[in-house]
């Protein structure tokens, strides 16, 4: 195929994806040495619990390797091992199905906790809503201090991007 066809090869599929479903995507980088054991937690989920995208009854998620030394940006965190696997779970539920939503939330939380246990890192846009403490753990103290200092310097009045509320300056209403 041409390079152009290659670049756009998923667009036809993308056009058929429903866009109104509550979607709880998580994307994680799992150290290569821990990946097989980690995947067992995903394989163990029944289809009803996994809620992965399906095509003709076949459920899918993506899983491919990263050479972690290729990632140089300080805010793009990867595991310390030289190789890792990107694991992307594009889970969603039917609109209004709150019980399923809660179940997937809990399952995501459990998978992300296991990710942290084995030295994995999250892809920040697809990693649920985090507390300030979770952001600190994600970035590590050196990078967190650097980012906090930069926030103070470049956005002293905390005007930009109230979500994600990583600096805890956005008062979120909650009846928890």
């Amino acid at each position: 195929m041409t390079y152009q066809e290659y670049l756009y090869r998923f667009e036809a599929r993308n056009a058929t994806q429903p866009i109104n479903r509550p979607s709880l995507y998580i994307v994680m980088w799992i150290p290569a040495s821990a990946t097989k054991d980690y995947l067992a937690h995903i394989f163990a989920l029944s289809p009803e619990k996994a809620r992965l995208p399906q095509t003709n009854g076949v459920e899918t998620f993506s899983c491919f390797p990263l050479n972690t030394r290729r990632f140089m940006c300080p805010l793009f965190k990867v595991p310390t091992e030289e190789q890792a696997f990107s694991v992307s779970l594009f889970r969603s539920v039917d609109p209004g199905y709150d019980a399923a939503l809660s179940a997937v939330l809990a399952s995501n939380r459990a998978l992300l906790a296991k990710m942290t246990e084995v030295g994995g890192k999250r892809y920040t846009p697809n990693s649920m809503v985090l507390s300030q403490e979770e952001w600190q753990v994600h970035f590590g103290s050196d990078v967190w201090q650097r980012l906090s200092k930069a926030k103070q310097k470049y956005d002293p009045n905390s005007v930009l991007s109230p979500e994600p509320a990583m600096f805890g300056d956005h008062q979120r209403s909650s009846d928890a």
Partner: protein
Amino acid sequence: MKEHLSRRKFIKLAAAAGGATIGGFDLSARSWVTQAQVQTPSFQSVPKLDGALLFDEASRRAIAVDRGNLFHRIPAAVLRPGSVQDVITMVQYANQHALKIAIKGQGHSVYGQTQAEAGIVIDSSTLSTVYPPTTESVDAQFGALWADVATATLPKGLTPRVFPATCMALTVGGTLSVGGLGNTSHLYGAQVDNVTELEVVTGDGRLVTCSPAHESELFNMVLAGLGQCGIIVRARIPLIPAPSHVLLHHLLYTDLDKYLGDQLRIARDGRFQSQRGVMSRNQAGQWSFTMEVGQFFSPPAEPNLAALESGLQF
């Protein structure tokens, strides 16, 4: 656009914004939010803009939707900027009036990251110019799609090193604010690893050009920085010669160890330019694993797939 809005009219708008917030699911608290946090922004002296500042309910509701369908935080206003100066003006205004600003591109985030309750959301789609590429690089505004970048560079035989993996309709500003992974990332890292210069509107309303050599800390804290320190308004993306063709092959595995081992091995030796993988479970509950590998080439050169696949255990 209304340049002046009475205080009274504004309060009405802010109340509408707060009251209209649909009970979103608070994922951090794991509870349904019913009470909106209502701020009291002040639009009585909106500066002159090249674009439009929209206050109508339809615009404010429409922008409060993303791919997650979990949060719907309604802003007080939507800015459709007509210039970078509009972005600067609005950020300065937000500083003066204690308002929050979020940026929305194509809205592919899922956890409400592009929303600002009772604040201002900047719709980047109105600033989507891709400038004519040189042989070295191309400059694109934050609202440009990666598809627009392809349209500008491929006819010149040039390409960025990393395009988004499965969707070309993502914005340059969006993926550079989060990371951006592609099917060539095993060779080149993320999209944020493949930028040489940025133009940024900082949170205190200054327009700064930054790069690894100039204002490097701003550069480092904006790439994958989730919009916390500045708004990327233009990016310079280095280019390499584009292949004309790609030979794609799908290698099917049923043995997980062999799949993982082969994936790691070919990522390490870099024999394929494109590499991804999908895990599938059929209706009988059986898992299988598909490695998609791609060889870039330009005829008359032809890739030798058999040689490339030697030693693999699919």
